[in-house]
């Protein structure tokens, strides 16, 4: 039975739950926008990284370089799109 529950994955799961808990702090305590958003962003990205490395075994595939390039590139382009759009549609808008 024990070999079915590897420590790495159980640890990853517990860590994910803790990170969710940390994100919840933003809900239960009043904090400034900057602090709140920083906590939320950090917990989200760390949790995503845990999924990628612990659960999705992104590092063990022989093409892991291609995999990480794809993922990083996707994240960069997605962020460019999000912030570029906000820049055009909201922040850089006079009227």
């Amino acid at each position, binding site marked *: 039975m024990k*070999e*079915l*529950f*590897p420590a790495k*994955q*159980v640890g*990853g*799961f517990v860590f*994910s*739950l803790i990170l*969710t808990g940390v*994100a*919840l702090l*933003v*809900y239960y305590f009043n904090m400034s*926008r900057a602090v*709140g*958003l920083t906590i*939320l*962003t950090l*917990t*989200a990205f760390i*949790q*995503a990284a845990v*999924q*990628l490395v*612990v*659960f*999705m*075994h*992104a590092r063990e*595939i*022989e*093409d892991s370089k*291609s*995999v990480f390039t*794809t*993922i990083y*590139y*996707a*994240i960069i*382009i*997605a*962020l460019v*799109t*999000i912030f570029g*759009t*906000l820049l055009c*549609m*909201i922040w850089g808008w006079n009227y």
Partner: protein
Amino acid sequence: MKVDHSQPLEYSTEQNRLNILGFWIFLGAEIMLFGTLFTCYFTLVNRTSDGPIGAEIFEITPVLMETFLLLTSSFVIGLGIHAMRLGNKKAMQAFFILTLLLGIGFLAFEITEFITYYEEGATLQTSAFTSILFTTLGTHGAHVSLGLFWGLFIILQVRKRGITPVTANKSFIFSLYWHFLDVVWIFIFTFIYMKGLTQL
């Protein structure tokens, strides 16, 4: 079909390795797909017109339940893949079935949540904000629903054909998909619900 026994079953043939890399690249496209939805969400989030704002309709309890269910299902399917690598077909199937049940639980909560929103007057047509909210959540929900069928097919195949290079490959790719849906949910949880509820 050349089988390389030095590698885990899911990587053991050339076609298997192609499939896994191809699926990772597809996930890159999926990141962009959800990235675009988030782009639109952030652009439209304050454009609520006469409709409700997020903080008025979001409730923490169902959201936490959904998060917990999906997070657990992601963990369980990881165990399923681990069992598969051990060659334990029974445990693998059990974990996969549990994953899908958790997925169904997630969907049940999400559908109830949607019904509540409708009753509170936040429909798909109310405002730009509700339109993009339902579309973003709905796209994720549609992915989960599709995953339920896909996962079911794979369980049936493993049951009938056993753990072979082909079924192991399919199961592993399905697990990638399922974990990815959890990753997307993390961002939905954080940037739609938490950000909306706290009005940051």
